[in-house]
């Protein structure tokens, strides 16, 4: 390859790429050097070979073939603090032309990614908002939160199940514990389990993830103990079904049609099986309270369920139901943070619109 390139160079009329430069890739963990070049002016070029030489070496290694439109390449296989230099060879089906070598460059890891500064500032602002309102809540200030009809209906729905002598079904979604929606669903389960323990209503909690199963079981057990009914808890309340999406939907549908729960809670992360669950529940005549942050499934829940917690209402639920001051304070912090974001968007949009106004260019 090298010899043929050398021979081709002697007789080549092809213009090589120019301005080959190499520098350490910034804001990374090391091991990368960015190579840039100006493309060859020849339109017959089909691509570029990137060549590398370590300091002290006599040979050039061919790294990668880059397309004819490429003008940069990231070499991700460098040893930190080792100097390398690069050449770029333009190639056609019959000839090639190499550029001059770049200066030496060495890769090194960085301890801070400067591109994340906006995220850091935003995070700091949000944390400040939370801290401020949590502090206010700690001081006993009354924090207003608007009514969420789905959560107000929880007591009524559970009462209905108790009167009818039928169980309550709680479906905590089909996602894993790593999904924040599942954690929110489990927090609500804790509150619901306290109420079912107090009312003496049977509770059924089928889970689709083994870890969610273990956490849910412990939460329900603790809720029954807190409600003063540890004797009413049994291992069969919470059980693992399957982690396959539609197999889980089939199992839950089976539970709905056999056990005929009076109240269904469909809270957590759902995918395509959302409507299957909701509609089957509606067919059995159950009162259904749903909550998810899966935007694509919200329309199905709104259509088929009696009450739906939309998006962030799901995350506010544990605070709403428990009325714990610290949790309420966090909700207020969240709301004011959203107000700040909306304000920034409005201002930025106005500025962007005004930037297009010709007269303002002269100001």
């Amino acid at each position, binding site marked *: 390859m090298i010899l043929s390139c050398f021979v081709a160079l002697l007789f080549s009329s092809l213009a090589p790429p120019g301005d080959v430069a190499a520098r350490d890739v910034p804001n990374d963990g090391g091991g990368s050097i960015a190579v840039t070049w100006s493309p060859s002016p020849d339109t017959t070029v089909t691509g570029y070979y990137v060549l590398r030489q370590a300091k002290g070496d006599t040979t050039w290694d061919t790294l990668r*073939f*880059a*397309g*004819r439109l*490429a003008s940069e390449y990231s070499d991700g296989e460098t040893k930190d603090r080792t100097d390398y230099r690069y050449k770029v060879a333009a190639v056609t089906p019959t000839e090639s032309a190499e550029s001059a070598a770049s200066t030496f460059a060495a890769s090194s890891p960085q301890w801070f990614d400067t591109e994340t500064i906006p995220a850091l500032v935003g995070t700091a602002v949000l944390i400040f908002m939370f801290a401020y309102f949590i502090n206010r809540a700690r001081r006993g200030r009354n924090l207003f939160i608007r009514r969420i009809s789905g959560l107000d209906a929880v007591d009524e729905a559970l009462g209905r199940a108790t009167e009818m002598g039928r169980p309550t079904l709680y479906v905590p979604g089909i996602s894993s514990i790593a999904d924040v929606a599942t954690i929110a669903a489990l927090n609500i389960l804790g509150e619901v389990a306290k109420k079912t323990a107090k009312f003496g209503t049977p509770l059924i909690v089928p889970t689709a993830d083994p870890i969610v199963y273990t956490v849910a079981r412990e939460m329900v057990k603790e809720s029954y103990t807190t409600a003063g009914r540890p004797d009413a808890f049994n291992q069969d309340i919470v059980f693992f079904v399957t982690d396959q999406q539609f197999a889980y939907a089939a199992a839950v549908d089976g539970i709905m049609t056999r056990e005929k729960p009076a109240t269904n809670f469909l809270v957590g992360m759902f995918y395509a099986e959302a409507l299957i669950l909701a509609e089957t529940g*509606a067919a059995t*005549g*159950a009162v259904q309270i749903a909550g998810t942050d899966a935007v694509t499934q919200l329309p199905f829940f709104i259509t088929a369920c*009696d009450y739906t917690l939309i998006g962030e209402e799901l995350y506010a639920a544990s605070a709403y139901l428990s009325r714990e001051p610290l949790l309420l304070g966090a909700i207020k912090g969240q709301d004011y943070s959203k107000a700040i974001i909306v304000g920034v968007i409005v201002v930025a949009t106005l500025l962007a619109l005004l930037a297009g106004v010709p007269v303002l260019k002269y100001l």
Partner: protein
Amino acid sequence: MTAQDGTGRRNFWQKLQAIDRRWIYLVVWLVVMLPLIFPFYIKPRPTPPTEKLFQFIDTMPRDKALAISIDYGPDTQAELQPMLVALLRHAFATHHRVGMLAMVITGLGLGEDALRQVTAEFNAHATTHDDSVINGEDYAFWGWSTPPVTVILGMGENIAKVFPVDYYGAKTESLPITKHLKNYGDIGILVSIAASAFPLSWINLAQTQFGVRLGCGITAVSAADFYPYLNSGQFSGMLGGMKGAAEYEQLVEERMAQNDQVWHLRMKGTEAMSSQSAAHLAIIAFIIIGNIAFFATRRRKS
């Protein structure tokens, strides 16, 4: 709360509002099944995105190949497989070479099914060697490889390096088609048929670096996400969902008719259009009937 308790005798409109779901399921089943048993073809008029893709492939120089990337699996087969079949028919009818690969391993079987079907269709009517569609000469099924970044970038240099053997086990270099289909330079357009965001990877890697022209076939629900790329020219055409497949089938049928290839081939996308149209109309009718019953009941109460 859901209305469940009856309150004595109900009039017709109240009964209609509370109709047993199973009647609705029965009607839906009938409107989907009957058009499949007694087909009536609603020939869809091609929309601009489909027309664009068709015209591009139709007017491609003969020495440029069509490359197809199967980026979907069996779960979206119903919507996307008709697109693959229609593209293959179009390529073979216009004597363009075809190179096929799969980025999703479960798509391999689907690709093989489509090739088997279309080559059988063409070879059943072939009278000469030129008319026939032959593996290794007219098309190559390269198979599946991973990781996707390596495949997409590697195809820019040498496809045979990325896929040393084809799906059937033959050495890619030894195939006659490989002389004319070495890398992106020999590909007129690459169409990614996907149920996910794979087409965007093709834009980011293949088009940005190698300038290869791209098209895509995607599911109807994700079509809205790809329109910006179509409008910017990054896609040279787009097939959206079953309707897109049906539109393309119509265009291919007309094109083949110009070649006197009136073979009355099965067009699953077009067949499904009748069922889909009937189902949508049925749901609209249900909603209208439900609302008439609702307003009639409300008027009686007031």
